[in-house]
């Protein structure tokens, strides 16, 4: 018997990625919360702060940081929970697609949204909000990549704690909303009371925004951001360990 060849890992990853892209735009709530919301907030806050360049210089990298979180952390926490509870993960596990190709396709889809948002926010910053092209684009890429890996792993880790589909928005927003407030998406994190500043210092989004601010606004070099990189890497290690350890292909029995 002549054995037909198994499809390649790359072609399967690509196949899964394309399906995720197609399905995404058919789901209005996912498209809104994971894609449109940061852009809407950028337009609103941009309008509120218009004329005050100091504020605009804060809000543009702040929204960029928030976009990284909503396109990876929030999106994957929802998505992995939904696929687990629906039984899609278990079904996939019974087919020959390698787990890695399947999960990479899903992650690639989330990262595409991140990349699109970074481009849209940068262009909007230049056209409407008086922020020049990023003085240090390479540094921006470094921080976006760090942020994507960090918040993707934390999003998958969070999905392990979410017991069912219905409670996913509560879990995600209970973290996402305080996180974006405390981490200085909408104001300079340096201006807040010290107890909040202490919390913010420990959180990864604050450091992602610091890095993006340096890359997109001030142009201060990557050498000045070592401590931010350190905090992001530490959270990433924690996220990856928790994401892998708690992973379940089957719905919770409740």
């Amino acid at each position, binding site marked *: 018997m002549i*054995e*037909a*060849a*198994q*499809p390649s890992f790359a*072609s*399967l990853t690509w*196949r899964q990625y394309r*399906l995720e892209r*197609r*399905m995404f735009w*058919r*789901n209005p709530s996912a498209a809104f919360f994971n894609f449109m919301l940061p852009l809407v907030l950028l337009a609103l806050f941009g309008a509120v702060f218009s004329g005050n360049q100091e504020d605009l210089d804060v809000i543009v990298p702040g929204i960029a940081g928030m976009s990284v979180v909503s396109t990876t952390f929030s999106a994957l926490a929802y998505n992995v929970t939904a*696929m687990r*509870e*629906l*039984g*899609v993960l*278990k*079904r996939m*596990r*019974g*087919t*020959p*697609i*390698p787990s890695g190709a399947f999960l990479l396709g899903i992650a690639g889809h989330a990262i595409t949204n991140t990349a699109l948002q970074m481009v849209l926010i940068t262009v909007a910053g230049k056209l409407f909000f008086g922020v020049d092209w990023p003085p240090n684009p390479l540094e921006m890429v470094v921080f976006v990549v760090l942020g994507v890996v960090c918040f993707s792993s934390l999003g998958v880790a969070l999905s392990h704690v979410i017991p069912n589909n219905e409670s996913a928005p509560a879990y995600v927003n209970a973290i996402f909303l305080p996180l974006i407030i405390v981490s200085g998406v909408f104001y300079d994190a340096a201006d807040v009371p010290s107890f909040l500043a202490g919390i913010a210092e420990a959180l990864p989004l604050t450091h992602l925004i610091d890095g993006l601010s340096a890359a997109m606004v001030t142009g201060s070099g990557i050498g000045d951001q070592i401590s931010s990189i350190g905090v992001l890497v530490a959270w990433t290690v924690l996220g990856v360990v928790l994401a892998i350890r708690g992973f379940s*292909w*089957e719905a919770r029995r409740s």
Partner: protein
Amino acid sequence: MSSSDFAIEVRGLRKSYGDLEAVRGIDFSVRRGEVFGLLGPNGAGKTTTVEILEGYRERTAGDVSVLGFDPQERARELRSRVGIVLQSSGIYRHVKVREVLEHFAGFYPDPRDVDEVIELAGLRGKEEARTRTLSGGQLRRLDFALALVGDPELIFLDEPTTGFDPAARRGAWDTIRSLKALGKTVLLTTHYLDEAQVLADRVAIVKDGRILVEGAPSELGVGSGAVRYRVAWRNGSGLLNQQETDDPTTFLHELTSAALARGEKLESLSVSRPTLEDVYLELTA
């Protein structure tokens, strides 16, 4: 018979969850091309057994071979040669029927034509429907279609028709018969005894993690003394009589000679073998 004549071989299979022993030493073999039914009440260990064969669970003890592979090693080649219909499992909500079938077809080295699968599963006319608009029965047919699209040699069906209306069940039975006609091996679990009786070449009745009896559905339990033949007839005055017997030959001979001697005809005379249901209820009660 050489081992390659068997699609599935299970020897001394055990599975414990903590203190609970779900499977307590099961042995059976399924020949290639055979439809084999696992019957038993809820909690008997059927799904645990099937999920071990499918590669979802690791066994506590025993030997298992599926198409020559150990399923818990999860070889990709094995997964590309089996099709799985789980007891319950969902699918993406924002995808179309043909689209998701084409997607899954791409996972396999030598998939079946998607149109053929749509026809076989009875989904013609629903190709462009979004999955979230499908009824429960249509989703179950999609489960079948997704399990068949890789053109598997061996198909696991875990309670495939639970919740179906009678017409939908007949449709599913036709699909399973076509699989047999195509030479596929099928391992079926079911609560429905008529389903096993109609579809399975051989069945095993499982209870409390053990196999109680195994054989062709029509021969199961016969001669074991557990279950008896039933003879029914109307006598001269039209009254319906029934008698159970272990020895229908002698009983019929006596009954009919007596009737002939009286010059009577026995209206509505029938002899029924014990049904699978009789055997099942006797054994699992």
